[in-house]
């Protein structure tokens, strides 16, 4: 949604030029208040912006652009029903106001009404065939349709509309990254790299694009390129917690525990509420046999995010490995309150209950684990089945 909002703000500034026809000219004073509203909107002061736009409408009751801008304010505030009312009002005043159709479509998309969104955005394109924003939104709509029903792939449409958007506005960096993401999903890594590189040509200091590219290289099994990309991100902004985190993950995957710990400790310094960093520090220490350190970090991760099931699970592992079986059982029972389908917890807890002779509880957990049918845990599933069978089957 962030991307759509980005587009909308661009369209907002361009609003007056986009309107083909203005049935009634607004008064000079109304235009002044509308412009004031745009200034506030750019400062993200939504309430003042709304007040200014409404003042503009009070002065010129048929001022389409002011209605359009109020619609944008409501959409940004998450008040979609109100936004729809205002965009429709714009269309009533000026049926050729392309931007309103585009915004209306984007609002329908935010409400989950994809087909209605496509209709409205297509109308925006008919009214103004050079609208890069509209093509971008249309591409996002087709991506959403694919996400909802992967069997009917609309990716080709999406690709075509993203391309059209970049043709119309080559500086639309966000389109390059969207396209790159789409190519990546399709496994077309070469084009994905090209699009990320194009985005970086437009903005070489965009850390998030560097990190996405690094992750793509990891997926392509090119660790050296990935490492260089992550290091580049850290070089651009040494205070970026995200960059250090990606580098830490990279070192972790490479088995370089000490380097990884250094990076995650840097993340914690930069971003003290990063549950992910504490989790990783805890997990690495767990793997290295530093149980006290692991326990402290994992507890901190859970303090920050009490819903962090993986951290809770690993904390259970720390207890088991340090011989505190009862504590491990208590911790894993807690994990299952957070996430009743946490497969690894069900499996380990079932085994632990079996180990301490609580056969009934063991069968209950293992049977639930088996019923999940986790593909990545085939060997564990087989073990669970054997244990359950030896105890007389599932209850």
């Amino acid at each position, binding site marked *: 949604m962030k991307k759509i909002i980005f587009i909308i703000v661009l369209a907002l500034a361009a609003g007056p030029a986009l309107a083909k026809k203005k049935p009634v000219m607004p008064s000079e004073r109304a235009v002044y208040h509308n412009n004031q509203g745009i200034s506030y909107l750019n400062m993200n002061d*939504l309430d003042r912006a709304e007040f200014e736009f409404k003042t503009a409408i009070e002065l010129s009751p048929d001022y389409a652009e002011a209605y359009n801008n109020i619609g944008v304010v409501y959409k940004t*505030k*998450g008040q979609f029903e109100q936004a729809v009312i205002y965009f429709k009002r714009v269309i009533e005043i000026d049926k050729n106001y392309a931007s309103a159709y585009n915004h209306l479509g984007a609002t329908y998309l935010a409400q989950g009404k994809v087909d209605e969104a496509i209709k409205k955005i297509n109308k925006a394109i008919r009214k103004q065939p050079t609208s890069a924003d509209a093509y971008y939104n249309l591409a996002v709509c087709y991506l959403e349709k694919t996400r909802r029903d992967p069997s009917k792939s609309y990716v080709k449409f999406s690709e075509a509309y993203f391309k059209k958007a970049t043709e119309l506005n080559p500086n639309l960096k966000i389109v390059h990254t969207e396209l790159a993401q789409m190519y990546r999903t399709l496994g077309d890594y070469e084009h994905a790299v090209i699009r990320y590189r194009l985005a970086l040509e437009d903005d070489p200091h965009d850390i998030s694009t560097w990190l996405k590219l690094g992750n793509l290289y990891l997926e392509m099994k090119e660790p050296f390129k990935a490492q260089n990309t992550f290091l580049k991100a850290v070089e651009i902004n040494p205070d970026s917690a995200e960059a250090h985190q990606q580098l830490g993950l990279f070192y972790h995957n490479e088995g370089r525990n000490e380097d990884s710990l250094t990076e995650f400790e840097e993340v914690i310094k930069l971003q003290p*509420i990063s549950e992910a960093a504490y989790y990783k520090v805890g997990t690495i220490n767990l793997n290295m046999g530093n149980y006290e350190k692991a326990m402290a970090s994992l507890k901190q991760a859970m303090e*920050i995010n009490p819903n962090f099931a993986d951290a809770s699970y690993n904390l259970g592992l720390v207890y088991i490995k340090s011989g505190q079986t009862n504590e491990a059982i208590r911790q894993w029972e807690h994990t299952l309150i957070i996430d009743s389908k946490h497969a690894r917890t069900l499996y380990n807890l079932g085994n632990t209950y079996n180990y301490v002779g609580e056969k009934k509880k063991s069968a209950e957990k293992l049977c639930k684990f088996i019923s999940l049918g986790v593909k990545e845990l085939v060997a564990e599933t087989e073990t669970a089945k054997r244990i359950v069978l030896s105890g007389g089957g599932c209850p």
Partner: protein
Amino acid sequence: MYIKRHIMRKAASLILISALFSSLANAECIDWGRLMTKYEVDNTLKWKKTILLESFKDFTKQPGDDWLSFGIPRLISEYLASGTEITAIHGAAAKYSPSAKPDFTITGMFQRTEGKLRIFVKLSEGSSLKRQWQLDIPYPNNKQFFDALADTTCSIFEETSPPYDKGVLKSLKNATASVPAFENYIRGTMLYQSFDPDKMDVAKTWFEESKKMDVHYRNAYKGLVDLYAFLAMHNKQNRKAYSGYLESVQGQILDMGRFSQRPPVPERPKRYAIKLDNKQGELTNRFLIANSLFVTGLNASGQKQWLEAARYFEEALFYTPEDAIMWNHLAKIRERTGDTYKAREAYSRAAELNKCLK
């Protein structure tokens, strides 16, 4: 009906009549928090299941976020009011509720990072965690704040006591779409619940600010109604002029009707049900009704119509059972009618509320 005719009097016609008793009620005599929450607490007791909502922990301690500790559980408790078999206790009402253990407890924590608010809501039954929810909300000014907490409330109902009125919940959810309006209302409520007259000026400003942010937000008006009713009660118990505050109560109610375009939230039946049509000029607020009856009772006693006066006071106490002065008046009248048993009972009720009336 004579009584009803008087109840129907317009608020503008309320007149101040000096209290006739000799005992003085000062701040040390009355536990104001207990007194002002008595009505709500008494109503709470009849519900089968109770949920206690505690303050939420502020994890990130960003400047200006203090109100969320009170505001998030307050909003959930308001939404829980749509439940038909459960009641939520929060804030001052929780502090002054009897010590009986609630069936469920809600605790939580929030974290704010740039443009985002993350809330964790924990539901416990006894001492064991029953379920936990994580909410990620765009912040500060986004309607999802209300939508997400309303959705969580639905999940809380599923875990505790499923029946709830969907229409009521929808109305509560749509009471305002403005987070700043809600924030100002909460800041006003936090000060109001100190029940310290010196803090009421600032509380009033917050409620007025809430109205500015959303003129249709009924809670902002309700906050002011409660605040003026408290000031009226405070002055009355201290033998000071109070009718001006009751006029302000009426003024806020009229403003609420005038500016509120959204459908009002249907109210749950209460123990002290006031079955009056909300037509213009008629009283619906229990403090205003009670005062109208009180004034009529004083008039009757002035004319030595003791039985009539007692009837008015009893009727008034049905609406404001927390009014020690009224109990005291009733006791004196009962003495005059020779009903010593009822007089003693009324004196005792007065003394329970105001220690200095012993």
